[in-house]
């Protein structure tokens, strides 16, 4: 039982990371209809800058995180302004590939600094610290991941619900032309979406890096598991992204924890494909996901 609870707790924390990445996907998708395949590299760049900031520039953890946030936000906004803005109206394939181009550039850029191997993550608390209760180890990082994810979700809820910028973003997501006619600066909405997505991804990256204790340039690959999360939750649903992320994280960690009990059936590494299998089932049965609008691109 303690083993099960331990897995559930770890799954929740992992799911929160997926949820943060998925939030980024969904916010950008809702604002501009673009799926950003480079989202994972924002995790990497964020975690990398925070780590370089604390260990090489000897900065306070929070200052380093602030720098990382600022850098990724500017990166996101610049990419949207100078690359994606010119791609409006192009086929989906081209748009996806431009973001994959950015993905390659960012990852290789981090590699080319020559400092990306076996990096220690920036962390304000000891990686191993935590609370033991009832035979379950509640790791400090996992607890903080869950708490911060909840705070971010709350903040985003308030932002979308009660601020004029949030209202502008919701209006743009509903009907871009009507939003333009009402005097909403759609370009500003795009920039805001990319900024929020980049910031959320950076925070996810910092938690993820602490979670894996040392990281390298492949850190961003984890973001691929957020694709099943957004499909499960519904591509255009922000609560769906969070719920989908947490479900995918839970299922993945549970599979990981129990697959060694069935080695002859499942083989090794079954947990790396469970999110995709779930996604395929969702696409076949309920393509709009749990909370998405009932409209999906298919023939």
């Amino acid at each position, binding site marked *: 039982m303690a083993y099960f609870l331990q897995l559930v707790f770890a799954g929740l924390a992992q799911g929160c990371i997926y949820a943060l990445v998925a939030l980024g996907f969904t916010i950008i998708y809702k604002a501009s209809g673009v*799926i950003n395949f480079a989202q994972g590299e924002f995790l990497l760049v964020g975690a990398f800058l925070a780590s370089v900031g604390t260990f090489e520039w000897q900065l306070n953890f929070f200052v380093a995180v602030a720098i990382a946030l600022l850098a990724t936000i500017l990166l996101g906004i610049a990419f949207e302004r100078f*690359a994606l803005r*010119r*791609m409006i109206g*192009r*086929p*989906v*394939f*081209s748009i*996806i*590939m*431009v973001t*994959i*181009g*950015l*993905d*390659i*550039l960012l*990852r*290789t*850029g981090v*590699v*080319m600094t*020559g400092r*990306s*191997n076996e990096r220690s993550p920036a962390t304000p608390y000891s990686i191993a610290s935590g609370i033991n209760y009832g035979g379950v180890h509640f790791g400090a990082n996992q607890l903080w991941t869950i708490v911060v994810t909840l705070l971010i979700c709350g903040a985003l809820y308030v932002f979308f619900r009660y601020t004029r910028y949030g209202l502008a973003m919701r209006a743009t997501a509903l009907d871009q032309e009507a939003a333009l006619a009402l005097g909403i600066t759609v370009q500003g909405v795009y920039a805001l979406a990319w900024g929020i997505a980049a910031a959320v991804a950076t925070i996810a990256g910092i938690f993820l890096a602490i979670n894996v204790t040392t990281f390298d340039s492949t850190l961003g690959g984890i973001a*691929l598991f957020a*694709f*099943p999360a957004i*499909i499960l939750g519904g*591509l255009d649903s922000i609560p769906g992204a969070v719920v989908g992320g947490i479900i995918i994280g839970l299922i993945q960690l549970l599979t990981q924890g129990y697959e060694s009990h069935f080695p002859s059936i499942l*083989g*090794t*590494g*079954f947990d*790396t*494909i469970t999110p*995709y*299998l779930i*996604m*395929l089932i969702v*696409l*076949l049965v309920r*393509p709009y996901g749990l909370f998405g609008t009932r409209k*999906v*691109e*298919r*023939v």
Partner: protein
Amino acid sequence: MSTNVAPRDTLDLAPPAVAQGWFASAKNRTLLIGGVALLTLVFLFGGDNWLLILNVTMIAAIATLGLNVLSGYAGQISLGITFFMGIGAYTAAWLGGSPPVFPGDPVGLNLTFLIWLPAAGILAALAGALIGPTALRLRGFYLAIVTLALVFIGLYLFKNARGLTGGPQGRTFPAPGFGDFSFANPTPVFGITLTTNQWYFLLFVVVLGLAALFVHNLIHSRAGRAFEAVRDNEVGAALIGVNRFHAKMGAFIVSSFLAGIAGALWAAYPGGYAEPNTWNLTLAIQFVAAMLVGGVASVWGSILGAAFVFALPLALDTFAIIPVSASTTGLTSGDLSAIFYGLLIIVFLIFEPGGVIGLARRGQTWFQRLEEQRKGGEAAAGTAPTEAGL
């Protein structure tokens, strides 16, 4: 005036079709003869370094061609080409590999490559035919994600099917050969002694040539026109009587077939050894990059793009163009070329979606226009005096 200037298509992924009668133009004939002469020179005097680069490029070009049929001509995104390459490679290993010596060795039936190479394509095509009906129900982003998932599911299957793939450590792959003659260890044939790389060069030229001819003819057939119709406007295509499902499936199967052939060769050359991890997402994205940089919906573009994405890092490595000290900072030729093609994808997609081939076409049109203007100017200058005389 501009009778033979094809109007530039305004659609993003649709550069104008290659003009008919390619060989009719003297310039193209010169180009072709020049290219053949250059390849012959490299074949005879290039040495192993150049031949290796050319050979890898040619295999990559076969896969890029396959991808171009599906994504370029039929407009269906695929990030999963390495899955089908893996299927092809393991088919080749199963049929052509050496029989297991010890228990636990991966299987092999030791058949000739005249069987395993086509079989690699056919089995990959079958896999495509099985997956197609499910995958092709989806479009755009959904299709991209599903094909991406395919790569990961493939990696999992390949790692776990130990009897076939050797597990995570990988397995040996058969080298092509006839009877006692093997490409990996060639003996003189009719008194002619060629190196391993030269034999492979000949093989790959033939296979790539056939693949390119096949794709070229396919695209100029009814089926190919159906692909392009579906890409440009699905509803429109359906209205004029194109069966969208058949067109997409056809493209998917052809694409998988070529990927399977390329996969078998990719595993066989140069080392004849591959781990399951060979067939990963990064490789798949490299093929997409090759297609985009070279030219979407273009046979020559596929070959050029493969040369750019796959030959460049090899050339950088082979000829030690990166300073030796760079190795301590972790900068590899792979990284350097990744920066190049990452940047080129973005730049080309924004400014010239037709890739290098699109750029060449644009240049050609520009020159033609310049020439016409010059001629027009001369004509005007020629008539002016007579008018004045009258």
